[in-house]
């Protein structure tokens, strides 16, 4: 091994990240070359000094107290909401009847616009949207810009994509805005608005009106709007046009909830 090669491996060597055979080669060279040996020693010494200089600071008590207090508060809130969701509805037969009816209607609506039962050819747009969704949905925080503010996300997305995108408020359906991302769909820059319902991520994509093939999607009319639906890899897609943009919702939550979203969306526009 030559000096330049050793120099190239120096950081990885000092970090203990070389595989055994390369490490032996480097060590072989170091035995014979005082200059490289000094460089390695200096590297170690530099890091040690750095660690010493940047000493650990204990977490200030007010910081830990604040954190523990917030967690306790969140925890109490969760317990309260668990209690009301367990007992609250039982107290009212009316509420029970209403929820049964809602579940039934939701199921029926879902059934009516459900994915085609015969497995059609996979549409490339569907595949792309589902893949994008699956890429980001499992992330701790799928949004690039984390914000629950509709206006802020709309402005940010417009700045990054050049598209005026409506960022719908789905909060009446219990769906929380997490923020925005920028991505590409069908060869165009696209806005990717991220929502969350319970533990499920809902992705809303917006891109210039899609003129490609919609083969493999099912056309559905609902409240005067035309949608295209599909299911792929266990995810559901709902696609529609608005102005000069095409919007697509992707999620693994049930149909009835996607329908909820769209109805809220159409009412707000």
């Amino acid at each position, binding site marked *: 091994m030559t000096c330049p090669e050793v120099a190239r491996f120096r950081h990885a060597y000092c970090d203990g990240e070389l595989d055994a055979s390369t490490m032996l080669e480097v060590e072989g060279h170091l035995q014979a070359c005082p200059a490289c040996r000094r460089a390695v020693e200096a590297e170690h010494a530099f890091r040690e000094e750095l660690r010493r200089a940047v000493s650990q600071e204990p977490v200030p008590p007010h910081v830990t107290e*604040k954190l523990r207090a917030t967690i306790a508060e969140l925890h109490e809130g*969760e317990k309260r909401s668990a209690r009301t969701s367990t007992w609250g509805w039982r107290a009212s037969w009316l509420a029970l009847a209403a929820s049964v009816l809602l579940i039934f209607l939701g199921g029926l609506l879902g059934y009516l616009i459900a994915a085609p039962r015969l497995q059609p050819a996979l549409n490339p747009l569907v595949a792309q949207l589902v893949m994008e969704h699956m890429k980001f949905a499992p992330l701790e925080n799928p949004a690039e810009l984390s914000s629950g503010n509709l206006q802020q996300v709309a402005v940010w997305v417009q700045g990054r994509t050049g598209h005026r995108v409506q960022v719908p408020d789905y909060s009446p359906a219990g769906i929380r805005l997490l923020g925005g991302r920028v991505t590409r769909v069908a060869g165009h820059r696209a806005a990717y608005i991220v929502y969350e319902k319970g533990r499920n991520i809902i992705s809303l994509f917006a891109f210039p009106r899609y003129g490609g093939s919609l083969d493999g999607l099912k056309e559905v009319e609902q409240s005067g709007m035309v949608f295209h639906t599909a299911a792929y890899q266990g995810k559901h897609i709902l696609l529609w046009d608005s102005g000069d943009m095409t919007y697509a919702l992707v999620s693994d939550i049930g149909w009835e909830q996607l329908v909820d979203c769209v109805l809220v969306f159409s009412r707000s526009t």
Partner: protein
Amino acid sequence: MGPDRGDRGRKEFEETALVHMQRIYNAALRLTRNKSEAEDLFQETFLRAYRFFHQFRQGTDCRAWLFAILHNCFVNRVRQTAAAVDFDEERIYRQAEFGTVLPQNPEVHLVRRLAGEEIQRAIAVLPPKLRVVVVLADLEGCSYREIAEICQCPIGTVMSRLYRGRQALRDTLRDYAKGEGSSKENG
């Protein structure tokens, strides 16, 4: 609606996640430029961790998981707050050739000469992407693989960022030692 968890979940969070408060606090201090920013980042990291604790796989390394959340929160902050600070400003340092031989090493003396505060400042003015890997590797002792997972990038990227970050840190320290400390910050 938060995830459903009982007292056991909270206790588990205490025992698994909150035991790493010290590490996360120190990393937050190194990543940010002042204490109040660090405290915010710290709070945000743990509250997010609490919210997503159901996604944490028991038996895996909670410290690395927390670092990943910290990194995420940090990246979001940089992107939101600093239109002027280019998150990709690392390209400034791209001209640094990977693997060049350093002159015989005077940097150790540099670190010895400078006060801890100046060194922290030198870390804090590193471009964010480089700062993250330097803090994780050199101060927190994370492996390349861990850093790659935390930052969600290939190991090769970790290595080159680490190289450039360390190089940039040395340059800044050299400037500080020459009494030019403020020039880099403003530039």
